[in-house]
């Protein structure tokens, strides 16, 4: 068995290396297949998949891009937990590793899933900012403002789909919007620049697809690679809906804006 490196990296192997022999069981489209690989220190599941695809099984398919946890392309279920392959080190996983495609999202081939299964839900909450009329300059927003802090906690989502896969409510009620879409909905509802809060709240308030389906398992919180807590956003949405029910809807004041240098001389 060769070493688990593509030749490009082999030059690095000149220091203390912990070699582990790992059996990797991959749930492929045509059944499970096991591979034995040797890992070097600091290698991840993604490195192992590359080694397998390069050297052992060229037809293996998986998806990746940035390899540093910023793009959310390499989501898969590793040893039963939704993870990004690029950020899952092999060393702590032990001698047996199982790798499966994400759940609740249709599989295209092997570990490649059709992210349309994720985005079809995401799209339903109108995930884009619709600027309020008159919003012509960046707003003045002190970073310590309460609402801004709440948004910041959920802003770094990379739409990797791990939370959707981990959400057992989606397994029970396939129409449920799921954690990522609801997290995005809350960020926009809380954003003073946005003009579509009513539309979004009416979507997330619907009984079958909306926040009321959430059973607070918090599986999404456990698996999120960016340490976002979608459950927190969902609880905010629930309370926002209830507050509106009790006190009615009050228009938000227009935020202060910052004058900046204008372009197009």
């Amino acid at each position: 068995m060769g070493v688990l490196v593509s030749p490009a990296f082999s030059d690095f192997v000149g220091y203390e290396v912990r070699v582990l022999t790992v059996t990797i069981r991959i749930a492929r489209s045509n059944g499970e297949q096991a591979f034995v690989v040797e890992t070097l220190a600091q290698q991840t599941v993604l490195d192992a998949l590359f080694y397998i695809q390069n050297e052992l099984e060229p037809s293996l398919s998986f998806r990746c891009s940035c390899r540093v946890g910023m793009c959310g392309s390499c989501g898969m279920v590793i040893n039963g937990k939704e993870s990004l392959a690029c950020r899952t080190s092999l060393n702590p996983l032990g001698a047996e590793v199982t790798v499966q495609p994400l759940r609740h999202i249709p599989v295209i081939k092997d570990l490649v899933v059709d992210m349309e299964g994720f985005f079809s839900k995401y799209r339903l909450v109108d995930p884009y900012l619709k600027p309020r009329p008159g919003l012509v300059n960046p707003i003045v927003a002190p970073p310590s403002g309460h609402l801004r802090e709440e948004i910041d906690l959920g802003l770094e989502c990379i739409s990797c789909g791990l939370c959707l896969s981990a959400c057992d409510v989606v397994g029970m009620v396939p129409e449920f919007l799921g954690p990522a879409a609801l997290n995005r909905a809350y960020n926009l509802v809380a954003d003073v620049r946005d003009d579509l809060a009513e539309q979004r709240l009416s979507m997330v308030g619907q009984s079958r697809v909306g926040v009321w389906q959430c059973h607070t398992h918090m599986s999404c919180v456990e698996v999120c690679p960016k340490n976002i807590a979608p459950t927190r956003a969902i609880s905010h949405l629930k309370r926002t809906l209830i507050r509106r029910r009790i006190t009615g809807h009050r228009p938000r004041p227009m935020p202060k804006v910052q004058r900046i240098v204008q372009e197009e001389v």
Partner: protein
Amino acid sequence: MRTESVDVLILGSGGAGLFAALHVHDTNPRLKILLVTKGLMGKSGCTRMVQGGFNVVLDPADSIERHFSDTLKGGRYVNDQELAWALVQGAPGTIHELETRVGCFFDRRPDGTIHQKAFAGQSFDRTVHRGDLTGIEIMERLRDQVLARPIAVLEEHRAVELVGDGSRISGALVLDIRRGTFLGIHARATLLATGGGPTMYKIAAPSLEKSEDGLALAFRAGAIMRDMEMVQYHPTGLLAGAGRVTGSVLEEGLRGAGGRLFNAQGERYMARYDPDRMERATRDVVARAGYMEIMAGRRGPQGGVFIDVSHLGAAFVRKTFPGMVQRVKDVGYDLATGPVEVSPTAHFHMGGVAIDSDGHSSLLGLFVAGEDAGGVHGANRLGGNGVAESTIYGRRVGDAIGREAAELPLVSVPDAQWELRSQHHARFWQTTGGENPAHLLGELRSLMWEKCGLVRRQTDLNACRDALAVLLDKVEHISVTGNREYNLRWSDALNLESLVIVSQMITESASVRTESRGSHYREDFPQENNAEWLKNVYLQADDHHDLGMKIFLKDVQFTREIPPAVKEAKLDGNPQHMVQR
């Protein structure tokens, strides 16, 4: 074979591609737009990986002229000044649009206005950012806006050829990676926004699927290329053993905030290379200094040097650079409390397709934006000007296409030609038992790192040229097996082909430029030669030359600012005056 006709074909879904799609649509909503991306929309590519931020003049104490001067100075005065001007002048409006229309939200100062941090090579703190992972915010929000508009998207489709007659582009041949089938797309206007990504180097920062496809496509279609020798190496690429995280960048803000670089002997070596600016010198200087230290043997256990920010205080580092702390933690170090081993890493390609400031290439119907285009950054790009380029030019070129596309003709390509070209790109299925593209890629990366990397010599470049010819021949012997659906080896083969072609361009350009300038350093010509080399190297595919390309030089046009060296030379009355650094 399946063919489609659209008004505007956009290749690539990074900052340039998505922003252009929005602007084409907003300028002329009647245009039928098709966005084709090699990966998932907004997820593949490098804008997503932007960490530090976006250079823009917002503060009244700063000025667009200063940003312009910094950009030229950083680029060692071989930038296309009109392109650089369009960059700095379009930056405030782009930030404006990102904040008020796209939905981005950048970090604020305590008073609530947009925060701007320090980056290397700049005379003012002007880098707007969102934490230390700015690209996520920009790409997610641009993607959200594209979802809201009637823009057709083909994900995991890669362009394998721009189809045209040598003077005009009429569309592109596209491979559906998921099905393994080809699709011919006719378009009035084609935008090349696939991004560069010099991944032909052993240590490289771009995302893994990047392979300079756009440059190879444009070159083969006959477009004029420029500055191909200018490859930027980022000084602080993380070393993570044999893992693929190796080469990923630790952001420039670390040095901007006061991070220090040490060699294995604990010496702050920048004092010997640039005592004034130290670690805040431009990337070319700092990267080469690191490389020299490594080559001189003053290297750490993984063959690198060390960056240390612990003196800034652990709490400050954790709060300001959470993404970097996390990344470093993933590979087993603590950025907040101690040094981390880093190495120069191939990061960005300043060279690319020659364009004007509205993105027109030398071919009718082919527009280029983002890293695929050359000329904006000259010989070295400033940190924070990269994402600025892709978004600003995405907007500009999108507007231009929106204005012009309806007037461009829709030229039909005969079915026979589509068939012929798709057979060509499926030729790897005909051979059996041949070369493994992953191994060839390894060869290429070692070759380019050693022979055409941070330090170049004529003898090495000659050897590199020969080795690349051999490699290109081996590419023809790659065999791909299995079924065609989502076949990664096929993609590897196509990637490798692009990379070898672009490597050839880099090598040829590098051997022409017999001086050192910015990122291009010739050991045999170590001085910057302003008397002879305030010029750009242009390339164009040509079957009548031995190399398959013709090379020509043009003087830089100083349309807006005359470089200090030229001014001095004029004062001296001696045009041959050589300025040494």
